[in-house]
């Protein structure tokens, strides 16, 4: 399942770092963070999507605490 979220993040390099970290989460097929349009496109396993999303938020916060993902 592919979903698009608004993702507020301040710096381009942090966005790349978050993208990298999120990609390594189990069950995430692909993820793109677009710094310019402040969006995250997440493609992950259907069955576990909600749990994966929680983990994505936690991972993102760990890498860059000043980011926000709104569902």
């Amino acid at each position, binding site marked *: 399942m592919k979903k698009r979220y608004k993702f507020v993040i*301040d*710096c381009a*390099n942090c966005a790349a770092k978050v993208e*990298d970290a999120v990609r390594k989460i189990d069950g995430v097929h692909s993820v793109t963070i677009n710094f*310019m349009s402040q*969006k995250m496109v997440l493609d992950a396993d259907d069955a576990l999507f909600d749990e994966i999303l929680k983990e994505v938020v936690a991972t993102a916060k760990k*890498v860059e605490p000043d980011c926000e993902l709104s569902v």
Partner: protein
Amino acid sequence: MTQKQKKMLRRIIASAVLLVIVKLLTAFAVLPEQGLLTAVCYLAPYAVIGWDVLYKAVRNIRNGQVFDENFLMALATVGAFGTGEYAEAVFVMLFYQVGELFQDYAVGKSRQSIASLMDIRPDVANLEGENGELEEVDPEDVEVGAVIVVKPGERVPLDGVVLEGSSSLDTAALTGESVPRDVAPGDAVISGCVNQSGLLRIRVTKLCEESTVSKILDLVENASEKKASSENFITRFARYYTPCVVIAALALFLIPTIALFLIPAAGQPAFLLGTDWANWLHRALIFLVISCPCALVISVPLSFFGGIGGASKCGILVKGSNYLEALAKTETVVFDKTGTLTKGTFTVTAVHPEAAYTPEQVLEYAALAEHYSDHPISLSLRAACKASLDAGRVSDVEEIAGHGVCAKVDGKAVCVGNSRLMERQNVNWLPCELPGTIVHVTVDGFYAGHIVISDLPKEDAKAAIADLKASGVKKIVMLTGDTDAVAKAVAAELGVDEYHAELLPADKVDLTEKLLAERSQNGKVAFVGDGINDAPVLSRVDIGIAMGALGSDAAIEAADIVLMDDKPSKIATAMRISRKTLRIVNQNIWFALIVKFGVMILGAFNMATMWEAVFADVGVAFIAILNATRCLRVDEFRK
């Protein structure tokens, strides 16, 4: 400026003022150059400007983010404080924050300018009630079949068909085209256009989320999802760059310091002579300041974002940075003929009468005989005939399928049709040397002449092809289902390198496969079609370009690049925008790398100070961002 940015600006000013005061105090010897008191005084501006960097550094280290830019900046400035370079420490932090603020501001600005570019979706629709009263509603709430009213000056909120009124619509926001489009009852109108003159009553044919304007907005907003290879390169590069520079900084400090400690002064190599650990630490700190890859990481996506935004200003929608990048490397452009290079409508191009008739007479007979037909050929005959056509002059019309029409015009038996009709009538007809569809005319059983009808090339087709060649496209191929003679003539007229005629849709795919196999390693093949029936080819090639897509969902769906109007010359424009964007991306990458590595080398040899390092970090970011914002400027490409 946002609240956050204003707050930061105030902090920068406060810190700068404090710094100047402390600096003046030391200059007038009120404060000593060194010492605890001076350090404490310098701490004030440092704390004002840098507290959040220090805080974030500590917080992110706890999260395991070692190569965090906040941490590196904190380390560099605290180190500078430690070695007694108080003013320098404050200044580096101050400049770092100025750079961050500018970055934030510039990115916000270009985001805004693209958003305003895309501000083409109206917020309200004037819904007409049962009794003709108008109600302002959200376009999302309007159902298909409802009637809306668009006043002059308003934007059309939803796709629909004009019921009443006529006006001209400004489509510039969608197509980049400045000539307005005239609409009358029965015409389809597209959301996003501005109604310029008359009041229009429109029956809605599409829901808001399916309307053209929503589709376009969606497309542009999500365009940079598909990242270009230079974008991926730079994020990969950044991942290794920072750790490498930090390790180099560590080595630059530790190795000489340990060497100084272990080797007695007499045996020290030349580069260690007269140095101490603080000197090497200082050199290492320069590395830390330069280690932030932000200038690179920000300027590349910013450039592509600007390029895509600029292109959409010209009516060219690019679905991803990767396509914008590929476009610059286009080697072969394949055109579908009908509707792409040619108008897709029939026009009378020549009339060859027999000696007894004038061209006008032949045309008039033909147009009258065909008066009741809706065939595209009949329409073109009627359009070409300048005399007014009186239907009363025509009687006894008989259509012969696959042959033509016979009728009585002014009492004379007129037959209009193809060569088969002539043979059926046993009339000696003359072949024509011109390509196109030949319509023969007989009057009272005698041959009166023939009319040549063809699908004319678009006005800008020839220039478009010359433009493409001038911008480095090696081969231009035209594919068509039309006859060889017609294809040959069009190919010769337009200057196409290669043409293939009489193709079935499947042949087009095969031929494209062949061209794909022939391209060079980095070359790309683009296919240009009108989006109808060529979806298989569009999806097969490197860059699928659909044109005349305004209002055609299928084309918007299938293609990688969508030309909102039907001008083939826009392809060369798109290529130019693509080239310009890539040029700016490359300039930024090389400029940043050369300055950064240059300053690092100078720093390692003690020839650069923190000032150069701050320039290599913040200054380079500043210049790269300014350069990147040039991508958004496309006025030179709009005529």
